[in-house]
């Protein structure tokens, strides 16, 4: 008797009421051994719960990572100037007092001219020094940039406004503070309209933008840099920056003296279409390799990071999924084990039922139903536990967890499928018993 014919036969004779009676009978039989049934179902409970909670935790973790990358702008290519390490510094520069490195206006114009699909570039320069409000100071950065900076960088303006094209053309001494800088310099006051001093220049505050959490988080993840000036940014028109601080930057730190000449600290290029991002990144890489002898720049392609994160997430999901699947498998084996014991224990009942007119498929169906009830109940309980665990994780570990609507459905379906799969063998064993011997069984 093949499984297919049994199932098709059962389905043909299956009315709702018959199924209901079979389920009631199954529950009665399982209820005879409450503890045993509960412990058996527990294997499935943990399997299902681990599937759901692992998926939720994995989904949450990758969501957080992707969100950080998306904050950088998936159509952006970010170029940064990096001070070359001493070993790679060419001899001629060593003789010069002024360290010259980084991205130049020439790079930008070449990129704009030759790379297809480059929409806008946001050049920016920065000067690191103390920022003053009257007598209180913060170690921070003056960031010279362009008016469309917040739009391109996905950064909201919290108060006031950003500086305008006209202010850039006029080289006006206006500035926009990041939220954390504003909090540090003006803990109690309204910052807008106040002035902030850096070195000998004064800037009028016109607005406050939100912190760049993405960069801060990404940098701390990649390099683990813990400089206090991170995020303490005062944004001013790039023209104003040039006027006030010149091309060469002097730094007096801890008694030592350092001079640097950096034309641009950061350039963000926005690419028109998403599919152009990767080719454009390669083209930019070529231009920079040609223009720079030393690697004094760093290129970040958020889309690339995103794709890599996507791949990591896939691997993560496969690993978590396998672990969860193994626990479900273990649960299934537990169920099969108990059902085999149950079948042996109820040999006599099987004999009685066969004597009273039960066909083999009736017996198969009865035991299959019992297994499915066991695993289904375990699955249902597991869904409950599985929904609770991510909440606890979120509450206590402060991790983002995301429960996809299909995850509980999938886990429950798998648990029922496991009931069927691991119920087949015990059920067939029950049905294949010789009625005469089954009746004689003590």
């Amino acid at each position, binding site marked *: 008797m093949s499984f297919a014919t049994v199932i098709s036969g059962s389905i043909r004779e299956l009315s709702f009421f018959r199924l209901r009676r079979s389920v009631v009978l199954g529950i009665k039989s399982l*209820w005879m051994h409450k503890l045993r049934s509960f412990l058996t179902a527990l294997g499935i409970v943990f399997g299902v719960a681990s599937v759901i909670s692992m998926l939720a935790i994995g989904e949450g973790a990758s969501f957080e990572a992707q969100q950080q990358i998306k904050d950088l702008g998936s159509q952006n290519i970010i170029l940064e100037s990096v001070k070359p390490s001493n070993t790679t510094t060419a001899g001629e520069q060593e003789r010069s007092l002024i360290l010259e490195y980084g991205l130049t206006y020439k790079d930008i114009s070449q990129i704009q001219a030759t790379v297809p699909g480059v929409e806008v570039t946001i050049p920016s320069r920065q000067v690191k020094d103390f920022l003053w409000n009257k007598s209180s100071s913060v170690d921070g950065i003056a960031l010279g940039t362009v008016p469309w900076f917040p739009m391109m960088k996905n950064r909201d303006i919290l108060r006031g406004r950003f500086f305008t094209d006209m202010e850039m053309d006029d080289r006006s001494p206006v500035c926009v503070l990041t939220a954390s800088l504003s909090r540090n310099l003006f803990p109690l006051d309204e910052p807008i309209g106040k002035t902030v001093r850096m070195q000998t220049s004064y800037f009028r505050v016109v607005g406050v933008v939100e912190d760049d959490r993405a960069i801060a988080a990404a940098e701390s993840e990649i390099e683990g840099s813990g400089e206090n000036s991170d995020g303490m940014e005062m944004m001013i028109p790039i023209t104003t920056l040039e006027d006030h601080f010149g091309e060469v930057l002097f730094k007096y730190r801890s008694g030592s003296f350092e001079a640097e000449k950096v034309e641009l600290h950061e350039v963000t290029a926005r690419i028109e279409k998403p599919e152009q991002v990767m080719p454009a990144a390669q083209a930019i890489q070529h231009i920079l390799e040609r223009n720079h002898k030393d690697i004094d720049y760093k290129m970040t392609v958020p889309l690339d990071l995103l794709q890599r994160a996507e791949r990591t997430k896939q691997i993560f999901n496969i690993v978590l999924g396998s672990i969860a699947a193994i626990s479900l498998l273990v649960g299934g084996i537990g169920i099969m084990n108990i059902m085999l014991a149950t079948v042996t224990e109820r040999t006599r009942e099987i004999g*009685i039922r066969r004597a009273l007119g039960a066909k083999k498929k009736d017996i198969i169906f009865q035991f299959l139903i019992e297994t499915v009830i066991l695993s289904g109940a375990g699955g249902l309980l597991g869904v409950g536990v599985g929904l609770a665990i991510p909440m606890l994780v979120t509450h206590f570990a402060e991790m983002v967890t995301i429960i996809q609507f299909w995850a509980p459905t999938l886990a429950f379906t798998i648990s029922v499928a496991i009931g069927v799969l691991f119920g087949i063998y015990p059920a067939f064993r029950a049905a294949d018993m010789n*009625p005469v011997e089954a009746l004689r069984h003590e």
Partner: protein
Amino acid sequence: MPESEAALTASAQQDEPVSSSQSGADDPVIELRGVEKHYQMGSFVVKALRGVDLKIFPGDYMSILGPSGCGKSTMLNILGCLDQPSVGEYLLDGVDVAQLPDDHLSSVRGKKLGFIFQSYNLIQQLTVLENIEVPLYYQGFTEKESREISVPLAEKVGLVARSDHKPTELSGGQQQRVAIARALANDPSVILADEATGNLDSKSGGDILEIFDQLNADGKTLIMITHDETMADRTSRVLRLKDGEIAFDTNVHGR
């Protein structure tokens, strides 16, 4: 158990079965023709039945007697369609069931045969009524239809007050009466009883035998397997088996 006694007031009509059996005795309900049963025991072949020819007629009240090892159990298994003969024909209601496939045998058992076992064989997790309804369940009766049959049967065996009890809450005699009700549920052509009073004290056993008498008086065909001579005395026909053959048959019909 006043109900049961009330139901069995007709037990005095013990001489009646003969007449009832004669009235419906046109065709045998069971006919065995040259039935043999062989078992393979290692390299030996054991012949448990060696060519049994037997006719059982509707309304017969028959006991099958014999020492252990004479083939009684084999006989019961074959008559009960739990096992199939190695050689020979078995006609049940005129249909040869000797070589039917398993599913058909199940239907035959469910529709035409009622079983009463020595150890009652009730299903522990089911109540009295549910136990009576088990054969009906496999014949596709609905819950409502089953209830309409099981309640009167519980009444008939005097257990209506204990309808919702589990077997473990009943005495042996009561359990056996549930088993009788269960055997009657499908209105079978033949009721097979295997040492039905073997586990009971003489009082309860007597009650059960009275029910059997009453059933036979109502026209049921009963076959009792026993080793108890006193039981055989109650039945109208006695068959003695010895070494797998019929040694003696009080075939009252002479056919």
